């Protein structure tokens, strides 16, 4: 199975771009699937008044067949941080093979400085 790069053909004044490609973008990563269960538990817990009694996710990991733990991919990072799971601990192997825990929110840092909008700011603008 190969991904063939786009080819460009010029036909007089018309540019036609053919692209034979696969669409891996339909793939569901493990963490995003787990968020469904996390959300179900969160909604079920809304009736529980004492927050200490609520069951909440504490640790997440994503591992390949070689036992290497990878940080959540972009979609999962976004979902976790924008839906209240920013404090969940993500277990990651760093480039040196060490096990390093990271809070989900730290995986989507806002740029330094005062100017850029954060994800939260941006969400408020859209809602307004």
């Amino acid at each position, binding site marked *: 199975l190969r991904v063939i790069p786009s080819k460009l053909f010029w036909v007089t004044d*018309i540019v036609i771009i053919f692209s034979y490609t696969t669409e891996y973008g339909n*793939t*569901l990563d493990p963490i995003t699937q787990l968020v469904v269960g996390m959300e179900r538990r969160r909604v079920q817990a809304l009736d529980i008044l004492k927050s200490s009694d609520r069951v909440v996710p504490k640790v997440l990991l994503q591992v*390949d067949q*070689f036992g290497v733990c990878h*940080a959540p991919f972009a979609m999962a990072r976004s979902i976790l941080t924008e839906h209240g799971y920013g404090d969940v601990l993500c277990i990651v192997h760093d480039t040196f*093979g060490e096990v390093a825990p990271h809070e989900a929110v730290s995986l989507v840092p806002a740029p330094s400085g005062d*100017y850029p*909008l954060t994800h939260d700011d941006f969400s408020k603008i859209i809602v307004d």
Partner: protein
Amino acid sequence: VFFFFYILIILCAGEQGYIGGAICAERAALLQLSHYKDPIIKKVIVTTDSESPIAPGVQCREFMLSHAALDTPIVMANGESSRISRCTLQELYPCQYLYRHQRRKSLMCFAENFSSNTKPVTDNLYPGTAELFEKAMAVIVHDNASALHPLQLAGGVLYSNGDIEVSWMMKALGMYVTVDDMFFACYTE
């Protein structure tokens, strides 16, 4: 003698009816680079018509990391350029995908070699983490579409009451995406 060709590529975001399939301006611009041989991304500039600059989205950051160096400057400006913020790509996306520069042929060999030097996941970080790791590894065989891509992934979440839930990657391939769906005809000036 070295020749440098600076190419300015300008694209905007593309949004369709179902928002899940939208593509951001940065990714749209980066895709245009496939027409050039070994392009080097010198700088990425993101502008907006809002009062404050906006940082690239998370998917965009991940996408850029496969095509640009970690120290690539990202410049974010509002429409009037009265507010400008700068950072590097690395700052925007920590814990980058470990295999992002591996081609398919070398991926499995690289991953296997890398894994020989990784430390085990233990309960030192949080009680129950080792069991979480084991349970995720146990279901990884269900990610069985290796013909699509050889790397298998599983995930797990540990809840505050000790419950563990696991999942695995579900690979998918839109077989209908051949010539017709990706056919564009653009009239030149």
